[in-house]
């Protein structure tokens, strides 16, 4: 049985970055009450904020498809997935805000005004139901692989504890993705064509989700401080190796003319054009503007709920106090 419980609540101090590095290298886990180096705090905060933003933007995409999901059971699945992603965002924003770099409101304002980033895959438009299936099958799997690699060695305690549950739930989403893909793959010619068209749109964004190659050695502080446990290029290669045969087995064509097998029979992707990824990091993806505007409008539309809750709490506090 793995244990994520830790009765000691921080309060540690490190003399310098070398001392801190030694602690991390020994497998030490940093807790909120520790006097962590500012550089570490900033890197971890940025990473968790990016993750939180991505869960929120992903959840809003799932939500858009609840009315369009074919059949009551799939609507139920999409309702639950939406709650999952928004719930994950909620937990991640709690932990990020506690780090004292930005408040939760500041993070949301930055997201809605296009000042902060989220995963590249949420900068594209889901055109048909088959796109949503491709997202569930391909994108959820890429996110799962990348999150699992963060969970493996994650040195920040509160983040690792949330990741344990997120990874378990994403594994469950992937089974839904496989089930939905199987329906299209064994369906009519139209359904198969729909999925092929969706695959043509989503293959490269999914592959690019892992990011460009990590800088050499331990130059990436995320690797050095064990927020990530695996290099981007290794995660990407493992993903290509796993998903190419799966997709081909279902009778689909992977949209990469330079895709090939190396001497050991491993599938290797052709050269990757990173321009589309860079564009999404500048909020300049094909659907970035609409997505951000929708999320911001959603936040504004629900202001009355937060307002009512705050007033209710204030009144309760007042009544208890009087």
């Amino acid at each position, binding site marked *: 049985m793995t244990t994520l419980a*830790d*009765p000691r609540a*921080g309060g540690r101090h490190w003399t310098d970055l070398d001392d801190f590095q030694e602690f991390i290298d020994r497998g030490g886990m940093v807790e*909120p*009450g520790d006097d962590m180096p500012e550089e570490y705090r900033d890197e971890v905060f940025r990473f968790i904020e990016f993750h939180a933003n991505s869960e929120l933007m992903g959840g809003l995409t799932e939500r858009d498809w609840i009315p369009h999901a074919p059949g009551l059971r799939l609507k139920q699945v999409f309702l639950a997935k939406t709650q999952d992603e928004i719930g994950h965002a909620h937990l991640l924003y*709690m932990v990020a805000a506690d780090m004292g770099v930005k408040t939760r409101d500041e993070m949301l304002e930055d997201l809605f005004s296009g000042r902060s980033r989220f995963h590249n895959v949420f900068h594209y438009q889901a055109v048909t139901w088959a796109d949503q299936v491709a997202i569930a099958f391909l994108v959820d799997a890429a996110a799962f692989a990348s999150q699992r690699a963060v969970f493996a060695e994650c040195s920040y305690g509160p983040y690792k504890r949330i990741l*344990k*549950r997120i990874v378990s739930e994403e594994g469950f989403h992937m089974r839904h993705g496989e089930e939905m893909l199987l329906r299209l793959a064994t369906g009519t010619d139209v359904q198969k064509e729909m999925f092929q068209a969706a695959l043509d749109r989503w293959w490269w964004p999914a592959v690019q989700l892992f990011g460009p190659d990590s800088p050499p050695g331990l130059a990436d502080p995320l690797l050095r401080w064990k927020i990530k446990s695996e290099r981007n290029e290794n995660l990407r290669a493992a993903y290509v190796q796993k998903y190419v045969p799966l997709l081909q087995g279902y009778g689909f064509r992977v949209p990469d003319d330079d895709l090939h097998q190396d001497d050991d029979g491993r599938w290797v992707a052709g050269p990757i054009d990173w321009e589309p990824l860079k564009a999404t990091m500048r909020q300049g993806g094909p659907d970035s503007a609409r997505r951000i505007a929708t999320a911001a409008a959603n936040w504004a539309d629900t202001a009355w709920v937060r307002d009512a809750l705050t007033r209710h709490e204030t009144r309760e506090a007042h009544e208890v106090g009087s």
Partner: protein
Amino acid sequence: MTATTADARQTVSDTARPGLADVWEALRAVDDPEYPGVSIVDLGLVESVELAADGSSATVGLIPTFSGCPALTMIADDVRRAVVSLSDVERCDVRWLDSPVWTTDRMSTAARAELATGYTVVLRGADGSLRCPICGSRAVADQSLAGPTRCRSVAWCDDCRNPVEVMRS
């Protein structure tokens, strides 16, 4: 901690009829899709198990933690697969029962322990109080009724500064 309903039920069924014990053993190996490592038997989802006299078919009665749980189809598939993998059992029917209603009382001590230490998810005490599964503090305050799943709400521990998820009944 006293034995819970999930603990007690298995003891009775195990001794009641030989053959049934094997089905229970197979079910014990079925994990909840959202909690790998936690068996559906320990979560208290299995209400009844019947085995035909010749052992060729079984009927498993399950109760959901929450209606609307998106894992129901998957759990039923996993149960069928596990039971049919027993030699001689050719068929397994799964029934979702309307009653009794699932509550956290149905969870075994093993499930409670694994959820607390493995997932940092806790159950509310009989008096409604919360205790942090990470540091043991009582300074845990509810944050929101809705968590990432139907069966959990979200709280915050002021001592170790971690979000804590709470199983809902």
